[in-house]
């Protein structure tokens, strides 16, 4: 059974024909070629497929494409400014919170969503936002460092804010 859906993905309106059991993740990756979101488990246990849908961080492997009809979607490709990177991305680089990189887009998107929702998020808020995200390489020390860095810079007065 085919369904026609409409999505806004990274600011661009998209009309797609999908099947009833198509996941949003498959459609983003294979139809729209936005491969930044990864499939690590397919059942919402690892977080590697995290994207932002209507302002919320969600696991794209758990959402059916038909459920996303009409949604506003942001993927990691859509948050990265053309000539730079975001504060979250910069913090990951500086803390060396990246090793194999497969889980990284999911972690970045979860923090990105939290900071967009709550610009004054504390380190604890940011850690909570990463609940259920798995990383097998780093041992989380550097990722915890990222949450500290972002919490600090989020609460810093605007004029002294570190530029990415």
């Amino acid at each position: 059974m085919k369904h026609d859906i409409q999505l806004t993905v990274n600011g661009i309106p998209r009309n797609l024909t999908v099947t009833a059991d198509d996941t949003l993740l498959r459609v983003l990756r294979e139809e729209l070629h936005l491969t930044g979101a990864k499939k690590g488990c397919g059942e919402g246990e690892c977080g590697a497929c995290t994207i932002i849908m209507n302002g919320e961080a969600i696991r794209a492997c758990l959402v059916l494409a038909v459920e996303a009809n009409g949604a506003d979607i942001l993927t990691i490709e859509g948050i990265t400014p053309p000539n730079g990177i975001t504060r979250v991305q910069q913090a990951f680089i500086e803390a060396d919170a990246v090793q194999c990189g497969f889980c990284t887009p999911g972690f970045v998107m979860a923090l990105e969503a939290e900071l967009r929702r709550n610009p004054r998020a504390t380190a604890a808020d940011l850690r909570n936002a990463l609940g259920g995200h798995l990383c097998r390489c780093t041992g989380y020390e550097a990722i915890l460092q990222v949450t500290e860095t972002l919490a600090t810079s989020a609460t810093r007065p605007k004029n002294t804010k570190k530029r990415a």
Partner: protein
Amino acid sequence: MKVVGQSILRADAREKVTGQTLYIDDLQFPGMLHARVLRSPHAHAFIKAIDVAAARKVPGVRAVITGRPEEQDLGGGVYPLVGACIVDQPPMAMDRVRFAGEAVAAVVAESVAAAEQALKLINVTYQKLPAVLDVREAMAADAPLIHPDLGNYQMAKGFHPKPGTNIFHHYKLRKGDAKKAFKTCDVVLEQEFSYPHMSHVQLEPHGALARWEPTGGIDLYSSTQAPFVVRGYLARAFRLPLARVRVRAPAVGGGFGGKSDYTVEPLTAYIARHLPGVWVKLILEREEMFTSSVVGRGVCGSYKIGAKRDGAIVAAQVKYLLNAGGYGECAINVAVGGGQNSPGAYRIPNIMVDSYAVYTNRVPVGAFRGYGHPEGNWMSERMMDQLARELKMDPVELRLKNAYRAGDKNAIAQRLHPAQGDLPRCLREAAKAVGWKKGASNVTRTRTGIRAKAVCSFMKSPVQATNAQVSALLKFDEDGGAALIITTCDMGQGSATVYGQIAADALGLPLEKIRVLRDPDTSLFPSDWQTIGSKGTYTGGIAIIRAAEHAIEQIRTTAAKGLGVPRARVRYENGVITTGGKKRYPLHLFTNGYVRPDGRTIGGPVLGYGVYTPDLQIPGIPKPGLQEGQGKVSASWTFGAQAVEIEFNPKTGRIKVLQLVTAMDAGRIINPRLARGQTVGGMVQAMGQALMETMIYSPEGVLRNPRLTDYKIPSLEDLQDTDFKVIFVETPDHKGPFGARGLAEHSTVAIPACLGNALANATGQEIYQLPIKP
């Protein structure tokens, strides 16, 4: 500016944080089809019949493939068996299955959904056979045979199978006479241990993309640590010249040994062979990563230790039984490496090791970060603490008394060079960092539980083929920069970054002038055995330095001819050529031929070539003047010590890990930040193995927890209260690049034993089985 020793930012970090890095499942080709695989529900069974008629009729299905002998026959009864050390596995089960999860059939379709729908319509008739899951049962004389053909398999030199049994290799190591020596000891202790099967849980599942070329060759992409080894397996299995097989590796989303040797490549190539000219993609589901891939560990055994009253260890005897699962190729050398290193990092004059690689009806075992070492360490370091208790000695003092020192001959009779590292210093550093008090109990009671500490030693050497070469190319650009072409796969350990640093300093050029290629291709890149055993920095670094030297020689030759001066007068330093006078010539004048004022060009583009070849012997082959199993079988060791502090809550049984400490002598550290990242990551993996992870089988041999919901690995919440301490003792290596040694796996080795010892200190409860369940 020199960059070796500096915490340069990871070369591929920006690509990765922006989601631009391409992994295997991110690759798509026009006309590409998707494969899905039917897996055996039985651990041991004959395949009597397979009915694929209904599956073929599903819309979108392009091929249904089985592993029946007539379908796998390459011609004249030749089957594509895979292996190098032991050639025992067909790409797909032929007439019997040897583990639950083995590939029995496959569907290739226009979509994964269509392929999955068709899989459900394949009807397989099995005749069940008794499943053997326990390694000791598998070794029993009356055990059902998992490979009745064991005696007929092709095997490499130095392996000792026992046809008519399930033992496919017995590695023996003898030093002195342990049997006699035990009789002279004041104290003899013996204990049985086990370390269960585990999954690597790389976040990226295994996958490959294969196309059978019109000329009869294989073009294949894979998430692999081992492009050249995979090429070899495919060429041998499908009877092709190496030139007809091309293997390329995109970014690898975590390896930890689980993507070395082979994974899904032979299966994907076999499937694609049915649809020549079409790209076929096979990506495993997470469940298949547990049931149908290569898993790790699965060792049990015993450790017997004998010592004098003063603490001098006199003898050790280790039985090391590797429950290798249904096929042997990826496991066979784990038994060798694990056996060699199992006595521990101590000067023990009498050693007896018997290590067995044994077939069982479980998921096949392969390399897993530490390659046999954590298993032996779990035994030897738990015994050291018990020996200390028995002798009423401080456990750190007992270790210091017996620790390997420069000049000692180790278990395999290799003499340790003074530049190979300082274990006693690592022990002292780890003890100091964790706050160990000599002679004290190191146990305190708090309101929330009992706090206890432990300190253990470790050592690790890469277990590698004697011809495990690495070669590097430096291809120079017209502006004096260069591309570094080396196959070593960067699966997150940071080799691309570290290699750039080594190349930059070896050439005296700024880092920005070096491009490190990260997309290995067996047809374009120089040969490199595989990226395993924490040997990348050491072996690849040596090859890079030699390539730089070779390039500089070419530059000097071109400069001498071009400028008309004797070669001996031409000097190269930091990108500048001088000929004895004041004049300084920039490098780029000579990298692509020197152009004289009249336009005539002297020399050609510079291509530096460097190679590392180990100087090693095969462990299982007798050598004159040495005892059984001894010889020059390891190129380098890295020594170190680890420590933990835990808080045990007797009411809840919960273990909170307060401190994880590693003090390691990895020689000169090329990039401290990346080295720390590796070390912390390894400690947390080992903590997961010790406290949480295990593969649980039903009595019939079916895995009960093949999902991340049921197989838990450490999460961020588990590490919020943990303090990490990493100390690098930097005794420069005498051969390694800029004095460096390997360090990537090492921090996994002694953490389980540290946790077991700390729990014993806290509670008096002696645990010998992992994971630790107090």
